[in-house]
């Protein structure tokens, strides 16, 4: 069975799923040229949910969460985030992006800015927060991800795990209501994966709405309230983690789980 993401007991007191809708995706389709990447995606995310999206590479899972903040454009169907529909209206897109945080596989920190400047850039320019206040917020979140002492270094001087935690802090500085994680641990060494997962677990414990594309099945089992399995651009199966891992219904899911957990 899969390794656990953490040995400690997870505090579930604030991990409440409300019936308020955070993201609503209905009948969404996307093509790359003529290639049909996402087919008829229907997904409703409630506030406070922690959803893990799993699936083989090329199944469209990254593309799905990248559609939610319009890094990729969908061609058909509706995506409504926090009550705002994603359309080609740039004002809507920038509004949604400032409400939805995102962490990438390769961190995408800005190498020409210090850690602190990385964290204060968007609050200062997008939210128009005064610099002092933005810096105080940034230090707060850097303490939270346990690297306040690196604040004046440049990203290139940090380890991968530290960079990813900075990336999480950078997103949090915008006080997002939803966090998207696009394979946040796939580019990291095993010992660094743990420190990033710890940060993500703490975030979940505070009640953040999270969508994670990840291969960390331990994290899915311990933290997620819902696991979605995708293949060939479609949602094949979704269920609560216990049911999903112990009793997968679709043969495609069974095959995937046997490959990923078998060894």
């Amino acid at each position, binding site marked *: 069975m899969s390794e656990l993401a953490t040995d400690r007991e997870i505090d579930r007191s604030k991990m409440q799923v409300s019936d308020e809708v955070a993201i609503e995706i209905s009948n969404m389709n996307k093509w790359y040229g003529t290639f049909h990447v996402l087919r008829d995606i229907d997904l409703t995310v409630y506030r406070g949910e922690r959803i893990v999206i799993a699936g083989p590479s090329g199944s469209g899972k990254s593309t799905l969460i990248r559609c939610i903040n319009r890094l990729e454009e969908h061609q058909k169907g509706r995506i409504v985030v926090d009550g705002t529909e994603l359309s080609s209206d740039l004002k809507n897109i920038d509004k949604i*992006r400032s409400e939805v945080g995102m962490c990438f596989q390769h961190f*995408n920190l800005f190498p*020409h800015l210090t850690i602190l400047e990385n964290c204060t850039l968007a609050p200062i320019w997008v939210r128009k927060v005064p610099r002092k206040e933005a810096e105080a917020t940034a230090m707060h979140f850097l303490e939270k991800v346990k690297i306040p002492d690196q604040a004046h270094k440049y990203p290139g001087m940090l380890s991968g795990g530290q960079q990813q935690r900075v990336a999480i802090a950078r997103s949090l500085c915008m006080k997002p209501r939803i966090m998207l994680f696009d394979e946040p641990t796939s580019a990291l060494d095993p010992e660094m994966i743990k420190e990033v997962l710890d940060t993500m677990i703490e975030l979940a414990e505070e009640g953040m709405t999270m969508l994670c594309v990840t291969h960390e099945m331990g994290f899915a089992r311990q933290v997620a309230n819902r696991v979605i399995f995708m293949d060939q651009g479609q949602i094949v199966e979704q269920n609560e983690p216990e049911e999903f891992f112990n009793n997968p219904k679709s043969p495609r899911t069974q095959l995937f789980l046997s490959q990923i957990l078998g060894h």
Partner: protein
Amino acid sequence: MSDTHANTVAYVRETMLPQVAPPASSTGPVGWARENLFSGWFNTVVTVISLAIIAWILIGIVPWILSPTWGATSLSECREILTAAGSVGEHGTSGACWGVIRERWVQLLFGFYPSDLYWRPILSFVLMGVALAPVLFADRVPSQLIWFSAAFPFIFPWLLWGGTIWGPLAVAAGFVIGYYVFRILGAATSNLIGLVVGVLAAVIWWLFLSGYVVDALASVLPLGIEEVPSRNFGGFMLSITIGVVAIACSLPLGIVLALGRQSDLMIVKYICIGFIEFIRGVPLITLLFVASTLLNIFMPPGTNFDIILRVLIMVTLFAAAYMAEVVRGGLAALPKGQYEGADSLGLDYWQAQRLVIMPQALKISIPGIVSTFIGVFKDTTLVSIIGLLDPLGLSNAIRADSNWNGIVWELYGFIAVVFFIFCFSMSRYSMYLERKLRTGHK
């Protein structure tokens, strides 16, 4: 196998070795020479041959440079001095004739600028240094100085060309008008409409209104300094003026063109591609001929469009096309993740470009940008072909003087040395900048 060796392999160190200086043969000048010059028989041979060639060149050139002809007032006097000094080779006297530089260096610097007004170009170039400081060394000078840098483009031409003070003020007013139209309309409608109307308003002001306003103001309050016509400009003053203006204007224009070329807006994209490819496909000299002759044909009769201004525009456009491609190279080198990182934080297009993309793309392109700068600066010598008296044009004029007829190397050598000083400084500055902006692993 490891079992049998267990006893002999076990080892515990009891005393730590102190740090010892390296052997003398590997440090100091001896060590350096051994490592870099004589590290094998082949390298030793190459070193000896190279030293011999350098010595041979120096033996040929140094006496020529050291010739005692600074006081001469004509080429024939030079020859007399050299004959008297005994430096006569098989092809007549051998030795430089430096008198021409002593007599004409001021002209090589200022052309035919009125000599009682030399303080104006001198002052303007000193002020240029002050204006460049906050741009080149932002971390070492007070940041308020940037306001002077902003005002300098209006002071500079006024000091050089002279005339009424209302002229540069009217040009500056055009920018203010355009800015406020943009602000007011941009807030009321959209940024794009504001931008277009703002630019239109400024252009209308410059072309049709400012002339009357300047004339009116000048007749009421005739503040100004003596006018110097463009035909009196020349020498390095002209080269530097063209070079600096072209460099300063081509970088922003090049950035805009590079962004335009990558734009999703079809029309903008193809206009930029067309412009870049057209300019790059045409030799600069052709553009300069267009500036000097053809442009007047297209102008309404009677308009007097200054020749230096026309050249400035052409050289700037030429440099901008190359700059655009250099900057595009920098943009292409940036990982897509940087755009996505900026987008995902909610930065809009211009914020992302200004705060995230451009600082990195420009940093990557520093060597290419500075190469283009150096190329543009040296290309300013081409203006001699359309009759402007840059240093090369002046050297022909000096040679036409019967006193100095036949002088070649001294003039070209002097011009080359001055150009080298400027170009080498730019190259050193770019290396300094690259070192300063390095933020990776230390």
